[in-house]
């Protein structure tokens, strides 16, 4: 089973690394988003520092919808999902493989985004505790996002449907991630932002369970 998941992951990453089109689009969009927020909200100096965690996570949330939509749409265009379903009886394997590849995509984006945000807002995002929060938040986001993107690409509105479906469902994630990040930037320890970390962990576990349980109903022919 692990081998199958690994195979799906490898296939997706190979496809993406070959063209890098999704990743570059996400990166450029993310930078544009951060700049837009900074201009529109006049995020200079202390205001910027206070707003930085929020801007970071909002950017991740919106950029994520781009990447997720594109990733699932590409799969659909190439008839990939049908192929995957023939290759593996177990729908869970397909879901986990796709969710992991989307997760990796977003983490790669964040490797670019965190240093950038550090430079723009003059706050140090590039530290282990913050990275942990980013990973936890992204796991939940990628899990919910992969499932909902699989639904969205099969609607008439397609990609437009994804943010509408996804954003209300990641409210706990956004609140948890923003406040944990903000706390850590102010000098609190991980233990002190513990309740927010708990929300992230519980969300990740619940969402993974729910998504795994329902994915087969989404891709059923």
């Amino acid at each position, binding site marked *: 089973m692990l081998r199958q998941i690994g195979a799906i992951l490898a296939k997706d990453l190979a496809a993406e690394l070959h063209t890098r089109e999704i990743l570059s689009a996400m990166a450029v969009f993310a930078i544009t988003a951060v700049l837009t927020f900074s201009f529109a909200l006049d995020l200079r100096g202390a205001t910027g520092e206070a707003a930085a965690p929020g801007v970071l996570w909002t950017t991740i949330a919106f950029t994520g919808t781009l990447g997720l939509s594109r990733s699932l749409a590409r799969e659909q265009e190439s008839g990939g999902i049908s192929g995957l379903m023939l290759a593996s009886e177990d729908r869970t394997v397909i879901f986990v493989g796709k969710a992991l590849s989307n997760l990796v995509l977003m983490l790669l984006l964040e490797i670019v985004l965190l240093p950038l945000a550090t430079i723009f807002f003059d706050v140090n995002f590039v530290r282990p505790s913050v990275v942990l929060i980013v990973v936890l938040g992204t796991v939940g986001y990628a899990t*919910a996002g992969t*499932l*909902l993107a699989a*639904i969205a690409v*099969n*609607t*008439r*509105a397609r990609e437009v*449907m994804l943010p*509408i*479906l996804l*954003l*209300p*469902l*990641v*409210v*706990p994630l956004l*609140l*948890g991630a923003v*406040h944990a990040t903000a706390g850590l930037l102010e000098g609190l320890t991980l233990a002190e932002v513990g*309740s*927010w970390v708990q*929300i992230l962990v*519980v*969300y990740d576990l*619940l*969402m993974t369970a*729910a*998504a795994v349980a*329902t994915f087969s*109903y*989404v891709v*059923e022919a």
Partner: protein
Amino acid sequence: MVRRWWDWLLIGLSVVMFCAALVVVFLYAPREATMGDVQRIFYFHVASAWVGFFGFFVTFLGGVLYLVRGERRWDILSLSSAEVGLTFITMVLITGSLWAKPVWGTYWTWEPRLTISAVQWLIYVAYVMLRASTVGEERVARFSAVYGVLAFVTVPLSWFAIRWWRTIHPQVVSSEGMALTPKMVQTLMASLATFTVIYVTLLRERMRLEQAQDRLAALREG
């Protein structure tokens, strides 16, 4: 699809109970000390919230039963409850804003209950839009059932997250610390009962409509 006797009973009860509720809310319930008469909107506001959130639970239940059993009637229950629930949540937001303005001086505040209601509203709207955007009756049912389940799972977490968020930041306006006298509690109960009956009535009507549409489609084909 034809109205049965219990449908008529529900409709009758709804009308009678609502009229009674109006009397109770405006004449029986005491005038609140600090807020005055505008406080009376509380009875409809809380009742709408109860129904709005309960409706989502029913949507979730219908979704689970549909996924497990595959029977169209569970899907009908889900979609009907979602539409009726959306109506009530809309009322929560509107009545909340109307009440907030004279009492707090602002139409909106990021107070936990208003915030979670806004999130719930968005979830309901997403559900309805998803249904409208999907082609194929069976696919619509499956997709919306999955979304209903996923969304329901996140609501309790959203509630806690929003509560913690609001307790950290000092609130510009404090949430109503109303001391409820027995008469007020009775009025609230009456209002809750009334709105629940109205919910069931509307739910039943919406389900009947959907069943009729199914029947029409079947007649057209066959």
